[in-house]
């Protein structure tokens, strides 16, 4: 674990790079190597993005809460601009939400992590960014 990880913060650039977000994202990080950001999507849904250190890797968890069950969302995780993982998820009861979790390598320097989800039906977009490290 690198000490600098404890000082990890969400970058301001992450906020500026969300043109479709209706409301600003909120960042928080605890005393351990973990950063969490939340925000609103371009519609009525909310998103949450967490990045934490885990055994030499970074664990990325993205979550979308639309309060409507059965919605199909396409999602992607980008790591330093490269596509690290992608897939399709359907919101599930009781909360009408879905979450995805993937591990990515903990590279030297700052890791730029982007979680993006798009509702297939309405085109609503959720996007969260964390610069970790």
């Amino acid at each position, binding site marked *: 674990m690198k000490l600098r990880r404890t000082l990890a913060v969400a970058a301001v650039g992450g906020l500026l790079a969300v043109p479709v977000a209706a409301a600003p994202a909120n960042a928080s990080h605890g005393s351990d190597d973990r950063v969490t950001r939340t925000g609103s999507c371009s519609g009525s849904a909310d998103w949450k993005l967490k990045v934490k250190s885990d055994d030499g890797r970074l664990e990325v968890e993205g979550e979308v809460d639309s309060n409507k069950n059965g919605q199909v969302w396409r999602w992607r995780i980008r*790591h330093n601009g490269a596509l690290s993982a992608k897939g399709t998820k359907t919101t599930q009861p009781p909360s009408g939400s879905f979450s995805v979790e993937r591990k990515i390598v903990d590279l030297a320097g700052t890791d730029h992590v982007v979680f993006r989800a798009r509702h297939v039906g309405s085109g609503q977009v959720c996007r969260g960014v964390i610069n970790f490290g």
Partner: protein
Amino acid sequence: MAKGGPVRFLRHPVVQYVAAGALMLVAIAAATAWLSGRAATNQARSEARRSTELLAQSVVEPAVPRKLMRVDVGAVDRLDRAIRDTLALADVARVKIWRRDGTIVYSDQSELIGQRFSLGEEEVRVLEGAPTEAEVSDLGKPENQLERTSGGLLEVYTRITTPEGDPLLFEAYYPLDRLDVRRSAYLRAFRPITLGGLLLFLVATTPLLALLTRRLEAAAAEREQLLVRASGASEAERRRIARDLHDGVVQDLAATAFGLSAAAREKDVPPQLTERLQGFSASLRSSLRGLRSLLVEIHPPDLQATGLVAALEDLVAPAEARGVEATVSVTGAELLDERGTALVWRVAQESVRNSLRHASAEHLWVTLSPQPAGVVLEVRDDGDGFDPDATTSPEHFGLRGLASLATDNGGRLDVESRPGAGTTIRLEVPAR
């Protein structure tokens, strides 16, 4: 004899046999350990090569995503997720995937990803299609600086191909501790066969050797006793002959010489006959002196009566004729009883004879002196000397016979000699 207890112990055949066997055991143990280590290393390398090839072909290569050659971070993430758990199960300490230019495109140690080092010749050859290679890692290399292992690593590299068809070098590292475990296993397997077999052989043959040695020693002791008895019988025979000659022939010759002298002095004997009779008488007296000297040589008539000093001086009398300067010094003879005196005479006789016959000495010293332990006779020369351990010379048996004789009479005989350094024969006799 000249050597002490420890030396005699070390020269014992059984001790030497057991010592040689122990040395052989140590040598075989060392050789077995070395061979086991080599076999274990080869076996471990071979297994590591097979494991690595299997890992590369069945796990890593199918999981290599496109764009890994370009160190695309997303591709690195996907490969990492695909293989990391399997690598952990395979007991692999480290993994690196290299590009031809020395760039590490993937490693489970993420700090290495994207770094560039120079590839060795063998690694390049494998990358170009040579068979899988295995070698002990040089932890001093820059690409291994992050390794924290204390027991060393065995690195194995083989070639894999990207979906685009580009070659990559897959390198897996294994802890060398496994070699020690395998070496111990081999050693355990070999030890009963090699060391156990030899140990059993030693255990089985040592008693046989001890038995044979005891028989040889018993035979030697019996031969010594025979020599002593033969010597005693010879002594008795000499004594009888000397007594018979002294009491018979010597007395008769003395009487005849005396009679001839008396006859020569009678007045009615013609002067011509007187002269002849005196000549016969002188010749007889000369023969009588020669016969008496011979009797002293055969057996001193009475050491107590004539005195040990005179007998010892008579004993060394022939030395002058041989060019040997002999010195006799006697003190404390009165402390000896009859047996002690006879023993001193017998040892002195044998020692002086041996010295004059074999030593080629310039000086000979015969010394009798009182000591705290008793009376000590020392016959010493500055001659050629000999090896007291040699068992081939006749003198050796004579000296061993004397040693037994000394022991039987409560004394002790020591021989100190070595080639070129003269000889000292020392007899300790208890004082009466």
